[in-house]
């Protein structure tokens, strides 16, 4: 059950942190319709994060609820991949990050529906519909940007150049995953690579995008986001996100 709690945190933290990054677009996107859409996606992911964090807390049995886990864990206790920590503010990068993460997550969720854990299975079933839309939204924009103007194609390419170096981390098959996958509870992420590569290649083709060659962002002695070893960007995101909750720990909200 320590494994199950850790696994729920992995999937929950991915959603929580990507949601936080997408939220930054609200009030400053290029078009109101996209502020609405990005807020929607952020809300979906926030909802998934809440369910997964709650589940992690109840499995763990230490009395931590979703807020204790979101607001009172320190950086090395977060289990999200580093990809979702990338700074926002660039719609090319946001499009690339959202396409990559939702393609991976959808492939995962589709399999997780069959989990032997009924809670994970139910969460996955609900999330599949949402993430299908997220992937469509990102793919649609990838095609518009890639097959739009020369400038937008370059911005999309540059967005992928920022995101692709962090993609391998999604497929490392963390020990926790593998143990749970063997028990029929989780999905071994190494199995998702083929589907992921196929979808990405298809979108890239439609977007007339040649995925750039990039240097991987390596791990630290073999450890990365899933082990609590994050990027330097992450501390700032957490400082902001947790600031009020931590400023007044006695408060009730």
């Amino acid at each position: 059950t320590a494994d199950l709690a850790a696994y729920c945190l992995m999937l929950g933290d991915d959603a929580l942190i990507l949601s936080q990054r997408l939220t930054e677009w609200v009030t400053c996107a290029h078009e109101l319709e996209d502020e609405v859409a990005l807020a929607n996606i952020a809300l979906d992911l926030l909802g998934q994060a809440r369910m997964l964090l709650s589940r992690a807390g109840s499995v763990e049995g230490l009395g931590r609820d979703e807020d204790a886990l979101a607001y009172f864990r320190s950086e090395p206790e977060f289990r999200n991949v580093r990809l979702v920590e990338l700074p926002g503010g660039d719609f090319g990068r946001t499009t690339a990050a959202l396409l990559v993460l939702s393609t991976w997550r959808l492939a995962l969720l589709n399999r997780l529906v069959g989990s032997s854990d009924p809670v994970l299975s139910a969460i996955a079933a609900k999330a599949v519909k949402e993430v299908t839309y997220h992937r469509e939204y990102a793919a649609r924009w990838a095609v518009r940007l890639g097959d739009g103007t020369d400038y937008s194609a370059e911005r999309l390419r540059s967005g992928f150049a920022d995101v692709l170096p962090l993609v391998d981390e999604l497929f490392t098959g963390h020990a926790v995953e593998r143990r749970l996958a063997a028990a029929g509870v989780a999905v071994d992420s190494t199995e998702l690579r083929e589907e992921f590569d196929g979808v990405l290649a298809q979108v890239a083709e439609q977007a007339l995008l040649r995925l750039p060659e990039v240097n991987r962002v390596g791990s630290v002695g073999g450890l990365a986001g899933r082990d609590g070893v994050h990027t330097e960007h992450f501390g700032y995101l957490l400082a902001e996100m947790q600031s009020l909750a931590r400023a007044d720990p006695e408060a009730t909200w």
Partner: protein
Amino acid sequence: MSTDEATVTDEERLYERFEATVEHDQRVEPRDWMPEGYRKTLVRQIAQHAHSEIIGMQPEGNWLTRAPSLRRKAILLAKVQDEAGHGLYLYSAAETLGVERSDLTEKLVARRQKYSSIFNYPALTFADIGVIGWLVDGAAIVNQVPLCRCSYGPYARAMIRICKEESFHQRQGYELLLTMMNGSERQRRDVRDAVDRWWWPSLMMFGPPDGDSPNTQQSMAWGIKRHTNDQLRQKFVDMTVPQADALGVTLPDSGLSYNAEREHYDFSEPDWEEFHRVLAGEGPCNTQRVERRRAAHEGGSWVREAAVAHAAKQAERGRAAV
């Protein structure tokens, strides 16, 4: 009879029909004839209202990334998203009057059209989120409920939908404040402090006193407005004082007291000089608010251009394929 005279007579007949529609509380629809002044007044008012929804996202948006619980974050995100939606309905309503939304956006970022001055105040603590819901949305509802019976159909219909969501938001804001007042000492301090800062600007949301509001009469005659500024302000005060008591906060007006004779609360005049300064561009956040929207608009132009270019290419391919 010259053509000109015929036209005039036609127009008189049209005007009479328009006046009858308004008088019988029927709706003027986009295809109906309407006086140019009516159209212009409506365009200005609906645009200003739409801009207010959009600019109004910013003070609340300031707390999206820092909301202190995931539940409050979801509530706030949904609310700010609703406001974007309200802006979209209202821009659509304005477009039925023959203006372009992109043109209205340009006017907003060039500061050639206004938005509700209250959004030029900063949201400094999370208590402000509650107070904006309670007082600012509360005042907006008092202003807007009569607009659900506005003589212009598309505007009235947009308002019905918006008012429903606004009262939901208002209750959420009040509920946040109740929770905070039952919380820590710091939370109570923040609520009191936020009420002190937002009370007077909320009263100003109804506009200047009736004596200084020259357009009110015409708007009322046209069925756009149903009550005067002072009537609405009184209604808001009467509604709000008991809510403040229930919450356990003191409104920052020593002149506030129930007048049994009038059956209304007496209250002091807001600082109308501050009101006019803010209106003239010297509020605490005027520049910041417009600049943020302008930066988003200009910084995002490459994305909009890409979408247009892609659509054109797709259309081209479609034609080529036929």
